[in-house]
């Protein structure tokens, strides 16, 4: 694995590959995930999922279900404790009460002593529906004569999930006055796009479609809630966003945040899909029955009724001059939000117009409501869809003008100071450096030879993500034995706690083993934003660094008093503070620990505090290259080799960073080749299982070469920037470009299933 790095200071811990601190517990099966927790008197919930996409509920009959031994309660919306409902926010419609808006929407909850009993009784709940016309396809939904996906206009859309992933100043326009399925739209214009096309030597256009895909974390959603007699609500959830859950649950149920404790249990994969969803419902159920209640979703339930990633249609026209200068981009970007607003229109529009320098832009984005499950975030939400179009178009332009596709990208790649479509300028970014790194890979250098093979080809694509911003805080405490505790409030979904240990050990010049890091619950931990938007190391890492520096100053101040040496003349190493040049004058962390914690201690405990707010983004870009082979008879595409170069600013733990790059790239390959939630014309999901919804397996994913590129960010700890999300973005385009290179046929719809490839080859007719 390679690493492209600028000269930088030498560090003891940060920047070096270390084993994850949680890995041993995970390989032995000892890690406790939400479904592994046991509580006394626990009841298990199964939700009744509507078998229709759009309907009015006429009646719910629970008597047969209630008659099953072991069933404690069957609750409908009417039985829940009083709460705030917002018909426009998915998580605040706890159970559908009148109108069902998507296939799989929960309409009732069965609570029983074990999950088998709950599931058995669930099937005995009788619900009468009056079916309403369902609208399933987003383009049809946009037509004036389309049936409406819901009664009532959108007034109060919840965009917090999107804002957690991408924080930029630009407003989406809410729906217009006349009833429509378009719930919001956005426009960006720059220059004169018609004049741009007039001066172009080549113009290409097309319509690219991306399917609805599911985050497919291997651990389905699991939530436990307990409301005790003193009015304290405790929630254990496999959430990426404990403080956000607390805020939303408290607001929905009318409780003070101080009385709501949210513990983020170990997240068995989230990828943006585990922000918050059923926590208010499960909490309301616990309040209704006054017993602890657990919802563990099955795979089928999770696929029916969590928050997958949207389907999108991207119409793009692009113009380039003969010398490779991009001169005009015109795009119409349509995201299908499903039944509630919250589709990533803004990031899609920013990225389609903000990945290359282009003087003339005309970008319109639409969020469309349909009667499908509402969407949520998936790693760089909205970005793979637009990169599929833009990066395919870049290859088409290069081909028309007989230019090298990598050179064309280098020529137009955005750099520091270039504006996003919103006008906001980029800080330092490393898109060009990523392209240069890909140019040096074996796959790219061997592409001419690879092409000699009749069905093999090489494809390149780039992608990026801007990143979210939220404040963060952390504490660093000295224990009685001289060891160090770091406490944060951010769920560790990517190895961030290991990086925080590295940061604290670095600042205190300690062996890594002397530092332990814990994610507290929302009652004990210092605040952190959601672990989403690739910002955890970027923001919480800074807070940990500050807290460690603060602890260091406190340690030096006490040592200075003890040793009667000015603090500036002290140095610390491996848990010992010494006077420079006078090695006999020293005090250990262990002694300091006792002096600050023991009975009658001289000094107050050492508690370093770090609190920051992040206002500047550190966008991350990646370039990726695929070598594929296409079977001309079956249309099957096999990825033979794959490489990803990504600018991470500074890799605090290169082992984790590589893993993030490879994992995201593999998800990109899944979107490229296999993954698609298939709905029928009545809005019913046809493949809610992992056999028919095909995830990439070990047979599909070759070893992925990861090349770490390090262009330091301006604010991140040691120059680190966002890492988690960008790697998913270019996959579909890289594969489509490689397929076009291999067999000369371009596929405009992802995933590139054998059927679609054969169609593009002209070998299938309707």
């Amino acid at each position, binding site marked *: 694995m390679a690493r492209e790095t600028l000269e930088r200071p030498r560090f003891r811990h940060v920047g070096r590959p270390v084993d994850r601190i949680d890995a041993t517990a995970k*390989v032995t099966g000892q890690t406790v995930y939400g479904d592994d927790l046991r509580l006394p008197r626990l009841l298990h919930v199964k939700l009744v999922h509507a078998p229709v996409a759009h309907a009015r509920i006429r009646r719910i009959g629970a008597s047969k279900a209630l008659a099953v031994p072991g069933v404690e309660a069957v609750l409908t919306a009417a039985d829940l404790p009083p709460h705030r409902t917002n018909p426009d926010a998915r998580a605040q419609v706890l159970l559908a009460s009148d109108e069902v808006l998507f296939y799989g929407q929960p309409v009732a909850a069965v609570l029983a002593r074990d999950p088998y009993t709950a599931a058995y009784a669930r099937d005995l709940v009788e619900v009468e529906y009056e079916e309403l016309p369902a609208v399933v396809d987003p383009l049809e939904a946009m037509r004036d004569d389309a049936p409406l996906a819901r009664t009532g206009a959108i007034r109060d859309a919840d965009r917090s999930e999107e804002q957690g992933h991408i924080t930029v100043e630009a407003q989406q326009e809410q729906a217009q006055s006349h009833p429509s399925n378009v719930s919001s739209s956005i426009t960006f214009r720059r220059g004169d796009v018609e004049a741009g096309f007039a001066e172009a030597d080549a113009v290409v256009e097309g319509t690219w479609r991306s399917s609805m895909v599911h985050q*497919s*974390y*291997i651990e389905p959603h699991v939530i436990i809630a307990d409301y005790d007699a003193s009015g304290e609500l405790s929630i254990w959830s496999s959430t990426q966003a404990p403080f956000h859950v607390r805020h939303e649950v408290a607001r929905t149920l009318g409780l003070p945040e101080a009385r709501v404790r949210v513990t983020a249990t170990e997240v068995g994969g989230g990828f943006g899909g585990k922000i918050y969803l059923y926590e208010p419902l499960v909490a309301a159920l616990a309040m209704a029955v006054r017993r602890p209640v657990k919802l563990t979703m099955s795979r089928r339930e999770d696929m029916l009724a969590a928050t997958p990633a949207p389907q999108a249609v991207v119409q793009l026209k692009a113009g380039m001059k003969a010398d490779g200068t991009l001169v005009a981009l015109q795009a119409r970007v349509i995201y299908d939000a499903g039944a509630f607003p919250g589709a990533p229109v803004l990031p899609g529009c920013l990225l389609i117009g903000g990945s290359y320098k282009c003087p003339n832009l005309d970008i319109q984005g639409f969020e469309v409501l349909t009667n499908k499950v509402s969407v949520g975030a998936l790693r760089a939400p909205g970005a793979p869809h637009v990169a599929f179009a833009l990066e395919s178009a870049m290859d088409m332009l290069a081909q028309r003008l007989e230019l090298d596709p990598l050179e064309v990208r280098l020529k137009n790649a955005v750099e520091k100071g270039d504006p996003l479509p919103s006008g906001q300028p980029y800080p330092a970014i490393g898109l060009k450096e990523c392209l240069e790194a890909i140019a040096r890979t074996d796959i790219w250098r061997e592409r001419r030879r690879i092409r000699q093979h009749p069905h093999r080809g090489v494809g390149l694509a780039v992608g990026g993500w801007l990143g979210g911003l939220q404040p963060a805080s952390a504490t660093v405490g000295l224990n009685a034995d001289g060891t160090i505790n770091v406490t944060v409030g951010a769920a560790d979904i990517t190895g961030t706690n290991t990086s925080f240990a590295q940061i604290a050990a670095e600042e205190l010049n300690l062996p890594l083993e002397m530092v332990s890091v814990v994610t507290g619950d929302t009652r004990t931990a210092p605040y952190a934003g959601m672990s989403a938007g690739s910002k955890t190391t970027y923001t919480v890492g800074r807070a940990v660094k500050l807290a460690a520096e603060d602890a260091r100053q406190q340690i030096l101040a006490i040592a200075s008093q003890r040793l009667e040496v000015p603090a500036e003349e002290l140095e610390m190493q491996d848990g010992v503070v010494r006077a420079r040049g006078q090695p006999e004058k020293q005090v250990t962390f262990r002694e300091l620990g006792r002096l600050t914690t023991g009975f009658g201690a001289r000094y107050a405990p050492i508690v370093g505090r770090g609190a920051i707010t992040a206002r500047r983004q550190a966008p991350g870009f990646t370039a990726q290259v695929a070598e594929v082979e296409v079977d001309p008879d079956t249309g099957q595409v096999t990825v033979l080799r794959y490489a990803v170069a990504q600018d991470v600013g500074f890799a605090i733990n290169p082992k984790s960073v590589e*893993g993030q790059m490879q994992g995201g790239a593999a998800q990109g390959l899944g979107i490229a080749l296999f993954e698609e939630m298939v709905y029928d014309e009545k809005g019913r999901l046809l493949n809610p299982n992992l056999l028919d919804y095909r995830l990439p397996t070990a047979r599909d994913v070759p070893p992925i070469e990861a090349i770490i590129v390090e262009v330091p960010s301006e604010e991140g700890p040691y120059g680190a920037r966002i890492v988690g999300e960008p790697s998913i973005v270019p996959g579909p385009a890289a594969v489509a470009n490689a397929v076009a290179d291999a067999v000369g046929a371009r596929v405009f719809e992802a995933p590139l299933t054998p059927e679609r490839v054969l169609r593009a080859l002209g070998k299938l007719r309707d």
Partner: protein
Amino acid sequence: MPKRVITLTVNGETHEVAVEPWWTLLYTVREELGLTGSKEGCGTGDCGACSMLLDGRLVTSCIVLAVEADGCQVTTIEGLAQGGQLHPVQQAFVEKGAVQCGYCIPGMVMAAYDLLRRQPDPTLEEVRLALAGNLCRCTGYTKIYEAVLAAAERMRLEGARG
């Protein structure tokens, strides 16, 4: 229908358990024996998170009924480390950075362990084939391949344990 009493020997320890006829082996091991290391990712035999050895054969325990396992020997992820020492497969997963969220890992480790018992010197392609029934959404598999190959090498050097 009354519960039925079955005998399961799990990681060398014999248990008598009263089970409902519809309980899966996975549910029984997790809920009745408290061995929660094996995970349910799908419940339909498609993800491999629940992989265990049943009389020496790798199975997806979410689609094995507990009553089918009556009288059988079961090895779960909890049975791999011996005397507080990680099995070389587990050790390699830690060292190679093959663990992210960890939810697939118990099943993945069991599948790798099973492969190396049958084929101590696998090629990369054999590793990929053997793990094809175990989905991992986090890692992109690359570091898992590296870990399994490294474990194979270490086990060959150490003269085969397990």
